[in-house]
């Protein structure tokens, strides 16, 4: 059990709902990793609008918390407007805040992001901002009231894993007063395990699961990796050292075996 803003959750995976081969496979994947939170895109899935009602019903039937996002917003103003619409439509004050600088890479615009986060925090939202691995931006997001910060591990949808590992580690060590979630760039279950070993509170996934040959199995694999990574972090990871140190005393080892161990 852990706490994300005002909610107590079991799973440390947040799962996106885009790109699955079918809604059925999406549902199966969400159940396979037993995640408690799913993200939905307001701009393409509007529940109250009659247009997306049937698809929305499928998501509601899963009985999970919905985290609407502001995907596709290019300015702080657009993102704020979209967030307010999402609050009305999905009846939640949670918002995954995305202010995008570049349509192709979907890289965050840090300036617009901090502006929009400040405004939405003042307005009573629980803001989960999608940002880069830049520590100063993360700090500013916390300073303007974000309880949660979601840096990328590498570019969204790239599946490159923890390209920003050192900066993520620095962020985790520095920002101890906010929940940190790795959002974007994870490709393999081991990437998620690494993120958890760094001490991140959770991971947010979409492409790595949705585009897998077998999305429900991949969702399950990520769930196990996240659990292993978290448990490893909590158990206290061994600090790597330069030289090998034998775990068995060499004193009783026959000399010929000691011989073969010499380089």
């Amino acid at each position: 059990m852990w706490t994300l803003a005002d909610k107590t959750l079991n799973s440390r995976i947040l799962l996106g709902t885009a790109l699955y081969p079918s809604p059925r496979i999406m549902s199966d994947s969400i159940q396979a990793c037993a995640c408690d939170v799913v993200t939905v895109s307001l701009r393409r899935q509007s529940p109250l609008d009659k247009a997306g009602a049937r698809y929305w019903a499928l998501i509601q039937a899963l009985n999970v918390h919905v985290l609407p996002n502001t995907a596709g917003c290019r300015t702080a103003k657009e993102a704020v407007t979209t967030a307010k619409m999402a609050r009305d439509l999905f009846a939640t004050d949670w918002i995954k805040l995305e202010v995008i600088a570049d349509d192709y890479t979907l890289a965050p615009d840090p300036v617009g992001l901090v502006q929009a986060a400040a405004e939405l925090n003042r307005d009573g939202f629980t803001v989960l901002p999608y940002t880069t691995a830049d520590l100063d931006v993360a700090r500013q997001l916390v300073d303007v009231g974000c309880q949660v910060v979601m840096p990328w591990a590498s570019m969204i949808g790239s599946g490159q894993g923890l390209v920003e590992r050192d900066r993520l580690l620095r962020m985790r060590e520095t920002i101890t007063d906010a929940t940190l979630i790795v959002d974007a760039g994870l490709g393999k279950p081991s990437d998620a395990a690494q993120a958890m070993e760094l001490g991140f509170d959770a991971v947010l996934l979409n492409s790595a699961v949705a585009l897998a040959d077998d999305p429900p199995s991949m969702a399950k694999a990520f769930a196990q990796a996240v659990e292993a990574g978290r448990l490893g972090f909590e158990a206290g990871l061994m600090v790597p050292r330069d030289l090998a140190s034998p775990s068995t005393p060499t004193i009783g080892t026959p000399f010929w075996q000691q011989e073969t161990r010499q380089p």
Partner: protein
Amino acid sequence: MKQTLAIVGAGLAGRMLAIRLADDGWDVTLFDQGERDGLESCSYTGAGMLAPQSELDRADPHIAELGDRSIALWPSVLTRLPRPVDLVMDGTVLVAHSTDEPDLERMARRILDRSPSPERIRRLSAAELGDLEPDLATRFQHGWFIEREGHIDNRQLLEALEAGITHRSITWHTTHPCPSIRPHHVDTDHPHYDWVIDCRGLGAQGDLPDLRGVRGELLHLHAPEVSLRHPIRLTHPRYPLYVVPRTDNLFVIGATEIESDDRGPITVRSALELLTAAYSLHSGFAEAHIVEARADCRPAFPDNLPRVTCEPGLVRINGLYRHGFLLAPLLLETVCQTLAKSEAVSLLETNTLLETTRT
């Protein structure tokens, strides 16, 4: 006396069934909410793709197997029609821009892994690509080719089917919506039928609570400077994007895929995406005329697989999603065989369909 049969919904499936069942000796009556022009049917908007293997990137492997067998039936369907319909099966070319190369390789690998006939799929060198599509050789260093795929001209087909129905003097009630149908009955104004066939697509949403619309948008461009011979599939992060060459330098560019029942006109974002895709494929599209922009919704069940259900007096065919032209001949053949045997099968799932059509 002939057995009576009402077909509700005169889209692709309804029209094809009307002709086939009339030829089989049934007394057929057709009902549709729209006019004979078919504008209200999502088949009018579709691109008529017949690409079972290309679809394997995202579709269930059953789709490829059913699709292959279904495509083989198209020529015999067309012989029943009084007018020619363009059916081209010269293969599909897959390409990607350099930044999307990994997506193309991932897509090709997945298609190969899942394909029932991987021998029909091959990687193209720059020279081979140039032989197949000279216009693409300068922009793309390699590509993939999938044999025995193609497209059918959907509008020619709907028109030819209409002509075939007229030719057979089948009664056709146009602008006659039937929002709720039940075994033997289409509505209170019409008598008992031996069979009612539900081909309403999204028009059946009132009777089928898990049927949803998946919006698709596409553009028709007239591009005299562009000569492409094959349907070209370009990788796109969110949906399969095709440029389909029709006759006289007409090209269909599509189609988006959005979880929505909205049948409203194309959005600016989608138009920008499709046009950019076309232009990035071939600069000759810059001077093309945008002849038409269309949007409609594909009927789909939660597993995105087609469903044929049958109870005494009522057969329903629905959820053909993005595979209407691909799967229609085979699914309808199954329906005709079921009706001929007059035995009610409770539900034809895709698995069962495969079994049924094998025998």
